[in-house]
């Protein structure tokens, strides 16, 4: 547990000192939301699509944050020293996933706020609980899948374009579930609150499956680097 927290703190400290998320990823994600609005060109359509667009922007931004999270490890073979510090590579996996989770959670908060401001989405009463749960569980899934596929493409030539190609199809169930559940939280006509909670169940299963798969796969993935 200590190792996990230590790895996460290290990553977050690097992020805090370089401010990549704040200076590049957050503006990028907001830009995506603005561009969606321009492309769709209809307020009714935007309100209908708000939930899906927020999660599309999250998916794209996750790719950038994941690249960054592994570039800091591979640039001077820092990963090897990191793995040498612990007997279990899975702890490094969970540490990196935890740091990614914290960063993506901050980003999700910004994007949901932006959806309220820009797209006119609204959240009332007990729907807030659903929204918070969806954001937390979906971000958990994004963080585990992101860390796993970040490790798959780490050190590879052309990893910038490989990561989206590999990770986005895997993230499809998460996109479907998170979008539908967020739609329910935004008070959409097409999906009710109970169904929204059913989708949260899918998100929890998803995060658990990829959390365990990632921890198991991290050892064969990083071993070959040394």
């Amino acid at each position: 547990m200590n190792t996990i927290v230590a790895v996460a703190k290290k990553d977050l400290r690097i992020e805090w000192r370089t401010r990549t998320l704040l200076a590049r990823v957050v503006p990028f994600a907001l830009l995506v939301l603005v561009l969606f609005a321009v492309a769709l060109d209809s307020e009714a359509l935007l309100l209908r699509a708000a939930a899906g667009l927020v999660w599309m922007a999250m998916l794209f931004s996750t790719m950038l944050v994941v690249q960054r999270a592994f570039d800091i490890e591979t640039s001077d073979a820092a990963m090897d020293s990191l793995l040498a510090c612990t007997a279990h590579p899975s702890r490094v996996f969970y540490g990196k996933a935890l740091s990614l989770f914290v960063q993506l959670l901050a980003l999700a908060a910004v994007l949901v706020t932006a959806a309220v401001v820009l797209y006119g989405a609204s959240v009332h009463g007990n729907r807030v609980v659903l929204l918070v749960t969806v954001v937390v569980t979906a971000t958990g899934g994004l963080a585990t899948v992101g860390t796993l596929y970040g490790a798959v493409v780490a050190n590879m030539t052309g990893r910038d374009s490989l990561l989206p190609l590999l990770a986005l199809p895997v993230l499809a169930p998460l996109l479907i579930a998170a979008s539908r559940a967020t739609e329910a939280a935004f008070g959409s006509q097409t999906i009710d609150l109970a169904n929204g909670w059913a989708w949260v169940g899918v998100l929890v299963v998803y995060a658990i499956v990829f959390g365990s798969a990632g921890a198991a796969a991290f050892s064969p993935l990083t071993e070959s680097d040394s």
Partner: protein
Amino acid sequence: MTVGSTGTPTTRVIGALALLITGWVVVSAFFITPADSVQGDSVRIMYAHVPTAWIAYLAFVTTAIASGFSVARRHRTLGFDRVAGASAEVGVLFMAMTLITGSLWGRLTWGTFWQWDPRLTTTLFLFVTYVGYLAVRRIDTDPRQRASRSSVIALLAVLEIPLVHFSVVLWRSLHQEASVLNTDGDVRLDGLMLFTLFSGVVAFTLIFAWLVIHRQRLTTLSDLERVVGLDAAIIARRAENSAGVSA
């Protein structure tokens, strides 16, 4: 060392059988079997569509199993990894054919090229997943690293596909949009039609086996070339040089 061909007597027999049965399927599908009472001539697409889909799934199952073995004994041999890669290449090819023949059939039968039906959507995601897998394999890297990374991706695909399928089924069942189209497209098959379809499956399975055997031998050779190629090139240059000196 020269290798003239990746063929052996076994692959020649498989190839000849595949050609023979494919020939029969083409003749039977176009000229002998009757048109369907509901779908008319468009039912003939099925003789190619169903076998390609079957082969694509067979190929991906083969890739997953071979990748499992590859991870389990990764420091001993690359054989399983090569089979996994060869099988995935053939699988992507056949899945592309499945999607193309399927959408042509859909246009004729449903009046639309694409339906967001769970089976179709899952197949599309499966296709993109293995395109990504092949992209990783194409990277020029150490064969052992290629083996470990690509087998992890192949095994994760096994996890991914049921999740994709489940979420798409749930998604579509909640929406219940105008589903006037019967996406099953059931056809009643008489004996000859069923036999032709079965022959198609056999023919395509033989083609699959033939392609995978050749492809994995080719991968073995190109991996070998990486190892001995440099030495051979150096020896050749030295020979040229000494020949030049003595002349």
